[in-house]
């Protein structure tokens, strides 16, 4: 009896010491970017009982991968609603996996939206276009939520910029997002060029785009790529840049 009481006292005494230490460790992990995604009833309904239990027991990454593979199979079978559902689950479980956000947006924006526009079962063009826009909005939503969860990673800003450029034909927003990507740590060198290219298509912002492209051009031969030179020449014409200030022919 004495032993049992000693052990219980030790266990609860240790509990009182460890609770604040655990709390401090959890804060340190949170501050270092190791926060865990919330597990609530919504996720429970999405995952099913087995998936939810697996996620609770520390295997959320593996569960998310299984969902990702299922989404891949659903994509091969062109089951778009299922692709959407599975990617929502995977991104909820692993909000820091850029790949899931990016792939979800790509499937919605480039595959499902095109399939909706060419849907042979829908004779009305207006409804096909509406469905396409809904899928594009879903792609945008995935990328925006991905950015909220990973604000310091350039990849999702790039994907959002490409979505604006290629699907919405919105060069202003594309330029903004390429510029945001370029400002993130570890961004590839082409992001700042792409931001300037997109800006060069925006009505009324030609001067700003010209200054940026010229600045890049003046940085040296490494930046003098064919697209940069051709956009600079277009802007030189448009802005009536004096011949002496124009770049030389390449």
């Amino acid at each position: 009896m004495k032993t049992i009481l000693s052990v219980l006292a030790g266990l609860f005494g240790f509990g009182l010491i460890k609770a604040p230490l655990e709390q401090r460790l959890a804060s340190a992990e949170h501050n270092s970017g190791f926060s865990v995604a919330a597990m609530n009833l919504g996720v429970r309904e999405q995952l099913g009982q087995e998936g939810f239990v697996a996620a609770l027991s520390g295997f959320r990454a593996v569960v998310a991968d299984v969902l990702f593979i299922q989404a891949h199979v659903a994509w091969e079978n062109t089951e778009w609603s299922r692709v959407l559902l599975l990617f929502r689950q995977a991104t909820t479980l692993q909000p820091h996996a850029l790949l899931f956000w990016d792939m979800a947006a790509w499937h919605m924006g480039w595959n499902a939206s095109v399939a909706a526009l060419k849907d042979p079962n829908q004779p009305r063009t207006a409804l096909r276009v509406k469905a396409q826009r809904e899928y594009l909005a879903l792609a945008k939503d995935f990328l925006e939520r991905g950015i909220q969860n990973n604000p310091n990673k350039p990849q999702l800003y790039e994907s959002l910029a490409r979505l604006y450029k290629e699907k919405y034909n919105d060069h202003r927003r594309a330029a903004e997002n390429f510029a945001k990507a370029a400002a993130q740590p570890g961004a590839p060198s082409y992001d700042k060029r792409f931001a300037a290219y997109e800006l060069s298509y925006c009505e009324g912002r030609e001067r700003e785009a010209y200054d940026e492209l010229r600045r890049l051009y003046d940085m040296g031969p490494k930046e003098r790529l064919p697209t940069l030179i051709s956009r600079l020449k277009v802007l030189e014409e448009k802005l009536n840049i004096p011949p002496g200030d124009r770049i030389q022919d390449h």
Partner: protein
Amino acid sequence: MKVFYFLLLFGLILIGGSVFLARFSFQQEFQILKDVSLGAMSIFTSLLAIVATARLIPQDIEDRTIYSILAKPVPRFEYVIGRLIGVILLLAITLVVMTVLFVVVLYAREQAVLHETARQMNSAPVEQLQQALQSVRTSGLTSNLIPAIAVIYLRTCILAALTLFISTFATTNIFTIGVMVFIYFIGHLQGTAREYWLHEHGADWAIRLFLAFVALVFPDLQAFNLVDQVVTGAAIQMALFLKIAGMAVLYITVYTALAVVAFSGKEL
């Protein structure tokens, strides 16, 4: 021999997985390969820690080995600590073998992808080729994985110490393993219970009492579950790793001390 089966299964998962995953892009393939391998390492070493430790004391009692050991001038605390050290070493060897297998498979896949990328981009500008190769390297084998594997090891050591503590007063292996499975699940939710207990003052007193019980009695195993984020690119800084290691040492020391106290009072 049983450890060998765990390793064999791990190897099969790893190699089978890498063959199956070759149909995905290299980022997808590497991420899933790392998730599955680290998840398998985590589950296998946790299972091994629980199952191998649960049978130590009951087995010695059943075989009557314990009487011949304790008949010699071996204090009970030395017996308990010696048993735990044996399991901790076994877990270390198992995890090292798994890590080597994992590194070999991931390295081989990374080299294959690098070779393929270099071949495909043969005529591309050097800068683009370098960026593409760098992208493959950052998705593949990185040094960030080593502290993540070390944290898995710390968690299994905690589980071993806790299992040893439970087995000092348990009457059967099954009871110890059953209790440990519950502790494993509750341990991953302990952080949520603790958060709620410490910060949610408006809750019913019975709920708060229950949450306090969970927070005080169970270890926070979720604090040792960082591999998910490491696979997605996060790095465990040295300061954070030392805090985690310090917490693990505290858990192991206290649970071992409690096991010693419980075992010292046990009638054999």
